[in-house]
């Protein structure tokens, strides 16, 4: 009986988590019109711009380095196999396809989750501990609209942008490898890239990046809102934000990839 109870209470806990996540997501979307420049409430757009700088601009160096490393690794690994078959030109295709479809969005999401997901939960968790969130509620100001929504809007704009940059750096680092190994010049490499790149793949990657941005912001923020207790709970919430969002990002990646695969197979 106690085993059943434990399973039951865990399931109820997960469902309630999912429920609050959905509610939070809906009210964040509902707040978007009030965030827009000119038409929205004053100050909101500025706050979203600030977040774009924190989530996007500040993450660019790291995304670029991670993507460049990823691109080089992929090129080196595939070259060592493909050279045995004399199919070195396929390295370009592999790097391009992998980055536009998969690695661009995924590496970006992992960087953003580690940098910003933890920051969101720590920021909001601290606001819970210092009663700032309570203060907002007693002022009849919706914390989701004031604190979360600008982050979400910002992430929906900058994460896809970072994803494009990530793919760009990954593909360029593949080019550097091809130049060093095969003496392939940049114009030729770019011509091969242009042949390999498919609009459909870029689109898939951008859809993924939007889903990942949603996961990172919503999970990061809900972990913050659910903080109970003191400073220790804030630390735990930051860990849990990164762990949960990374896990969900990879899970969602599999799901979306399977969806596109099945849609394409018809």
């Amino acid at each position, binding site marked *: 009986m106690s085993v059943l109870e434990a399973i039951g209470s865990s399931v109820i806990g997960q469902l309630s988590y999912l429920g609050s996540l959905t509610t939070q997501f809906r009210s964040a979307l509902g707040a978007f019109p009030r965030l827009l420049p000119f038409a929205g409430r004053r100050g909101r757009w500025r706050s979203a711009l600030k977040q774009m700088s924190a989530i996007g601009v500040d993450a660019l160096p790291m995304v670029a380095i991670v993507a460049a490393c990823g691109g080089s690794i992929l090129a080196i690994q595939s070259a060592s196999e493909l050279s045995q078959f004399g199919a070195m030109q396929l390295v370009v295709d592999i790097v391009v396809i992998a980055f536009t479809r998969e690695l661009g969005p995924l590496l970006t999401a992992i960087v953003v989750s580690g940098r910003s997901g933890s920051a969101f939960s720590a920021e909001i968790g*601290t606001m819970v501990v210092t*009663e700032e969130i*309570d203060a907002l*509620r*007693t*002022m009849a100001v919706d914390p989701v609209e*004031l604190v979360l929504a600008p982050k979400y809007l910002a992430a929906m704009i900058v994460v896809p942008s970072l994803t494009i940059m990530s793919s760009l750096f990954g593909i360029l680092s593949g080019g550097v490898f091809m130049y060093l190994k095969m003496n392939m010049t940049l114009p030729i490499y770019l011509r091969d890239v242009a042949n390999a790149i498919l609009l459909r793949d870029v689109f898939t990657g951008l859809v993924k990046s939007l889903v990942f941005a949603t996961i990172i912001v919503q999970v990061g923020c809900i972990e913050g809102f659910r903080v109970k207790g003191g400073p220790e709970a804030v630390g735990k919430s930051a860990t849990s934000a990164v762990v949960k969002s990374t896990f969900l990002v990879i899970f969602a990646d599999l799901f979306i990839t399977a969806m596109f695969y099945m849609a394409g197979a018809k």
Partner: protein
Amino acid sequence: MESPIISVRDLTVSYGGHRVLNGVNLDIQHGEVMVLLGASGSGKSTMLRHIIGLERPDSGTVHVQGIDINHCSAQELKTVRRGMGVAFQEGALFSSMSVEENIELPLRELTTLADPVIEIMTYIKLASVGLGEAGKLMPQELSGGMKKRAAVARATALDPEILVFDEPSAGLDPIVAAELDELILFLKRAFQMTIVIVTHEMTSAFRIADRLAMLYKGSLIAVEDKASFQASTDPRIRQFLDRIPENIAETESVHRRLRELAGVTGAGE
């Protein structure tokens, strides 16, 4: 008699099986200063959180200005909250904003006033709590007393009818605490605000209160005016007023545990 501005009926709250509030009834009238007293763990902060609508009770109701705050529309709740300012224990100022922006926030969020008007109102509120020159500072740069005064300025930004304080004098030196008491009395005189204060600071309570309510282990044991409260013969109130310590170190359970640790059994005595 006028209907009370805040009316708490049969408020019952439990946390994890532990009863924190036990069917509490309390009426607070327009324009009075009601001080909610009680030892730590008596449930006074819990009661405050329910009065300001941050938590839902297990049973019982809280009416503020005639509206049941746990069973009303979002719009009604918004109206109630606009008419209520809360100054939290540690101030709860938004640490990412300057003092000025903190006070401007409710004005920007809940009114359609033009920026210059908001700036003037903010300055008036800050000046009324003696922080006219501190507007540009960040909350981290303020002392404890300044933080609380800034919190009062923010709580009064929308000229609420009800002002709620959570432990206003906690962590303040006697002089600053006395200044805060005077500020509270000034707000009452000048704006006829209804003021609800949770505290265990007796000097301050007797200075500012019109009536005092005493919570003891989750139940309200007295709601009286200053004179009759001071003259009370209830041992639980007297213990609080006369600062008689509870014998926490010499209880039977401590003796029993010590005997166990020393390996002495009850039979050997």
